[in-house]
């Protein structure tokens, strides 16, 4: 079954399937029925992270070093935990500014610097081409191995294959074709490629499936599960020593550095940036992808160790661990599975190659070719019509160039490297972007000079500590500086640099390059100044969530430009139709109509620049827009003002909302108070009228009947006296209350014995008690500490409470208990009656002025309604508390507390 023809048929059939999927997805996208717009496809497309290096290389690394392969996957998992903070911010920034590549991102942040953009693009290309070569190598290697079936022959025994007989060459050609067809279909301001993403997501399913099948076959087919496999492995000392690490702290530090490294590359790898940021359809998809993607990584790694140990146990010698995934099914004579693995490995390789070439081509075009092209006179002149075709052709050329270089690298140089080391060397190269990138979105003071110095130095250290030694190893350069150090100085040996021992070459390079990079970035930034544009961009990036979602709403630009000039500029890159659509959308939203000589407002200029940035990168877009507008330079101060204004507008509107809500509640409170005042007046007048009416009617009786009997006359005059006393009391209460309310009450604060007050208060209401035949009990301790207070007012409180109790006591068999307790910090006085009680809903309100308990039996309130309000104010002035408890038909208890010798509080009266 596994003849060369069959394998080739399946391989190229699979490639054909990819073309079909991409075509379908592109057609659906054109119809507006996107198939990739969901978090699952998004998460699967992120799995382009797992390349052939994962598929074949992880097992090789695990067979040699146990868990050493894992930091590469743990790092992304941990970064996903920060996804909502870090990734979402990058996605938002890129959407707002229409950023389409990592070089554009960094260039745009540091003042749309063309220099920085080109640097990033060059580093990315140099770092990634060997990585692409590695994928091609994996395809070539796996094809040759499966082609020897049923023999198992290692790649190192292959004779050099001529280019035109090498499968990898044709795969490379097909991949270039794929990337050109689906990656450069049109020049779009968003640069999203639905077809490519759909194909990548499909490939992620295939490679996971293939790997899991091999894992299950090894673990459950060749062995009886994990336990059996590890038990057998532990019998071999060579394998058993992989179960634990030997205790060297360097090992742990290298592990930490590799986790850190892989965290950084998850956003810094051009292809990851492309799938996470550029191809993102909806920010909310991140929410699910944040755990789906790590779950994918976990799934594809579960069987790595079993396959590594299974292979090491099965093949005694002569088979590279890098090939176990493929050679184990071959050795077991599972032809179908071997073919599936071959396809799985191919999907891992091709997915990475496609995404990486598309991402790199954008960078090469926008940040390396366009800046040069736009400086040439013939492209600058508007006469040179439509440039969009030129841009697309540059991209197509770049794709072909990248793949050709990668193939050449693999074919002529790459043989000298092991699979794994190339991948990690690339990782370290792109990790150099991390300080400028992460610093750029969280730290406003990072400057362009700082970013350039850090990047250059980090890249240099990378080249010196990692690339140079491996080039020397491959015999391409003189070994002298490597073994003896630069200028013969041992401290300057690339490895270990400055004698830093105990780390493996990768961890060693990560440490030095990132230390130098981050150190210079921060240090130089602190000692250099930002230009006005840099300052603007820094603020827009760092505070992206506080600015309007569209950059034209916070335009920082002043100058004059004609709408027609901008239009023709856009048409050159986006085509007439797209330009008209975009400009009409802008005009409709703002309700503007342009005449032939209309000048563009700053918002339109920014809008045009952002549109262009999506197509040719921010640095080039800036150059192009600057060529048609007359710009007046803005000072740093003005930029700050404009920025602050836009932000303040948002802040103000929030503040207004808050103020509005406050006003509303204040208004409600005022209305409530107003209502209470009305009630107050009506109750007071009502209360005043009752005794007044009584006095007046008695006076009328006396006037009309001058000859009343003596005793009747006396009774009536006594009533007059009583009613006028009541009148006086009421007026006094109102006056007291008023004084307390306005804080004009005078207090004479002295130490007071509360026991004495209780006794005297009882004595003064004795007459009332006797009239209603109420039994009163006083329960006071022998000793009670004094409280600090106004004696007369406290007396008033007690009399109030007692007369209240009398009023509500039962008519027959009434009983009042007055108890005084000494508590740790205060005295507590309780006055309990056995009356009808107070309804639960009234317990709180009875202390408010003119709120009385209206119980059904009496119909109308008994009392002025001010007594308890005054009582509460007095108690609170003394720093105490008063409350009531009640049970219907059993009685009410009023309890008040007074702290010992509490000094009078300043704000005691509200």
């Amino acid at each position: 079954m596994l003849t060369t023809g069959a394998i080739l048929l399946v391989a190229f059939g699979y490639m054909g399937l990819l073309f079909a999927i991409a075509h379908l997805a592109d057609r659906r996208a054109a119809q507006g029925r996107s198939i990739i717009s969901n978090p699952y496809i998004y998460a699967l497309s992120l799995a382009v992270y797992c390349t052939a290096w994962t598929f074949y290389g992880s097992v090789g690394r695990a067979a040699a070093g146990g868990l050493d392969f894992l930091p590469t996957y743990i790092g992304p998992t941990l970064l996903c935990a920060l996804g909502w903070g870090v990734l979402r911010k990058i996605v938002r920034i890129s959407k707002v500014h229409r950023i389409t590549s990592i070089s554009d991102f960094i260039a745009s942040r540091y003042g749309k610097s063309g220099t920085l953009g080109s640097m990033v693009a060059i580093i990315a290309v140099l770092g990634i081409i060997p990585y692409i070569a590695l994928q091609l190598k994996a395809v070539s290697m796996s094809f040759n191995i499966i082609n020897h079936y049923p023999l198992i022959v290692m790649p190192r025994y292959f004779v050099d294959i001529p280019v035109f007989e090498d499968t990898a060459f044709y795969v490379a050609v097909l991949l270039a074709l794929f990337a050109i067809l689906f990656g450069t279909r049109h020049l779009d301001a968003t640069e999203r490629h639905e077809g490519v993403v759909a194909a990548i997501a499909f490939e992620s399913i295939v490679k996971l499936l293939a790997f899991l099948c091999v894992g299950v076959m090894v673990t459950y087919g060749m062995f009886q599960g994990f336990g059996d496999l590890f038990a057998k492995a532990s019998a071999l000392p060579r394998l058993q020593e992989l179960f634990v690490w030997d205790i060297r702290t360097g090992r742990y530090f290298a592990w930490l550095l590799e986790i850190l490294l892989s965290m950084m590359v998850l956003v810094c790898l051009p292809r990851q940036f492309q799938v996470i940021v550029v191809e993102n359809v909806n920010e909310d998809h991140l929410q699910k992808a944040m755990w789906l993607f790590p779950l994918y990584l976990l799934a594809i790694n579960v069987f790595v160790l079993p396959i590594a140990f299974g292979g090491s146990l099965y093949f005694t010698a002569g088979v590279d661990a890098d090939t176990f995934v493929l050679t184990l099914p071959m050795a077991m004579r599972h032809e179908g599975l071997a073919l599936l693995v071959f396809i799985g490995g191919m999907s891992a390789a091709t997915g990475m190659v496609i995404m990486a070439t598309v991402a790199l081509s954008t960078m090469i075009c926008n940040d390396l070719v366009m800046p040069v092209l736009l400086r040439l006179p013939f492209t600058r002149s508007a006469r040179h019509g439509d440039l969009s075709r030129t841009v697309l052709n540059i991209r197509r050329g770049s794709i072909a160039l990248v793949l050709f270089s990668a193939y050449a690298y693999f074919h002529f140089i790459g043989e000298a490297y092991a699979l794994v080391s190339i991948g990690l060397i690339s990782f370290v190269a792109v990790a150099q972007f991390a300080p400028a990138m992460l610093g750029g979105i969280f730290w406003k003071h990072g400057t362009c000079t700082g970013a350039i110095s850090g990047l250059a130095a980090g890249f240099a250290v990378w080249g010196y500590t990692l690339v140079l030694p491996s080039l020397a190893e491959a015999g391409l350069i003189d070994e002298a500086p490597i073994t003896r150090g630069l200028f013969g100085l041992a401290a300057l040996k690339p490895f270990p640099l400055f004698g830093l021992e105990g780390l493996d070459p990768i961890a060693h390079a990560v440490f030095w390059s990132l230390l130098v990079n981050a150190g210079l970035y921060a240090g130089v930034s602190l000692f250099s100044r930002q230009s006005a544009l840099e300052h603007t961009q820094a603020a827009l990036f760092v505070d992206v969530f506080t600015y309007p979602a569209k950059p034209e709403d916070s335009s920082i630009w002043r100058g004059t430009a004609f709408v027609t000039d901008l239009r023709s500029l856009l048409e050159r890159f986006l085509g007439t139709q797209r330009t008209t659509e975009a400009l009409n959308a802008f005009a409709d939203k703002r309700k503007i109509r342009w005449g032939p000589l209309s000048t563009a407002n700053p918002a339109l200029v920014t809008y045009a620049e952002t549109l262009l940035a999506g197509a040719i990168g921010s640095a080039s877009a800036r150059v192009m827009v600057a060529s048609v507008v007359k710009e007046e330079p803005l000072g740093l101060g003005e930029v700050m003002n404009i920025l602050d204004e836009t932000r303040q507008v948002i802040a103000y509107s929030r503040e207004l909302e808050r103020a509005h809500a406050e006003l509303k509640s204040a208004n409600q409170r005022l209305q409530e108070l107003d209502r209470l005042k009305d009630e107050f007046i009506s109750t007071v007048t009502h209360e005043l009228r009752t005794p007044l009416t009584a006095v007046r009617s008695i006076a009328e009786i006396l006037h009309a009947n001058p000859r009343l009997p003596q005793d009747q006359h006396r009774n009536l005059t006594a009533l007059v006296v009583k009613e006028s006393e009541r009148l006086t009391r009421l007026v006094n209460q109102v006056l007291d209350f008023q004084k307390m309310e306005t804080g004009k009450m005078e207090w004479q604060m002295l130490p007071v014995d509360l026991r004495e007050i209780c006794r005297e208060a009882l004595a003064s209401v004795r007459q009332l008690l006797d009239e209603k035949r109420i039994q009163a009990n006083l329960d006071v301790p022998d000793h009670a500490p004094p409280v600090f207070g106004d004696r007369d007012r406290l007396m008033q409180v007690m009399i109030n409470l007692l007369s209240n109790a009398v009023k509500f006591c039962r008519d027959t068999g009434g009983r009042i208990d007055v108890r005084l307790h000494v508590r740790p910090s205060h005295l507590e006085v309780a006055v309990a009656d056995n009356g009808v009680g107070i309804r639960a809903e009234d317990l709180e309100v009875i202390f408010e002025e003119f709120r009385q308990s209206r119980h059904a039996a009496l119909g109308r309130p008994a009392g002025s309604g001010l007594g308890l309000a005054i009582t509460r104010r007095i108690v609170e002035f003394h720093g105490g508390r008063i409350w009531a408890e009640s049970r219907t038909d059993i009685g009410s208890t009023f309890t008040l507390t007074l702290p010992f010798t509490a000094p009078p509080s300043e704000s005691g009266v509200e």
Partner: protein
Amino acid sequence: MTPDRLKNRRLAGVFLLGWVLFNYPVLSLFNRPIALLGIPLLYAYVFGVWALIIALIMLGARFNRRPPGQGR
């Protein structure tokens, strides 16, 4: 505190937990030649923590879902 900021803090907590559990010195506690259900302790521990972190991210990301399509 806005739901987004709360979510950010929760997930940052998950990150810190993962960072501590995956690194020296906690990691060294499990670097012993013992087997757990037949699986070497170190492997079981690392994969177990990994699964735990993923579960926690899932929980953290699910809280306070905001209506889709909202700008901020």
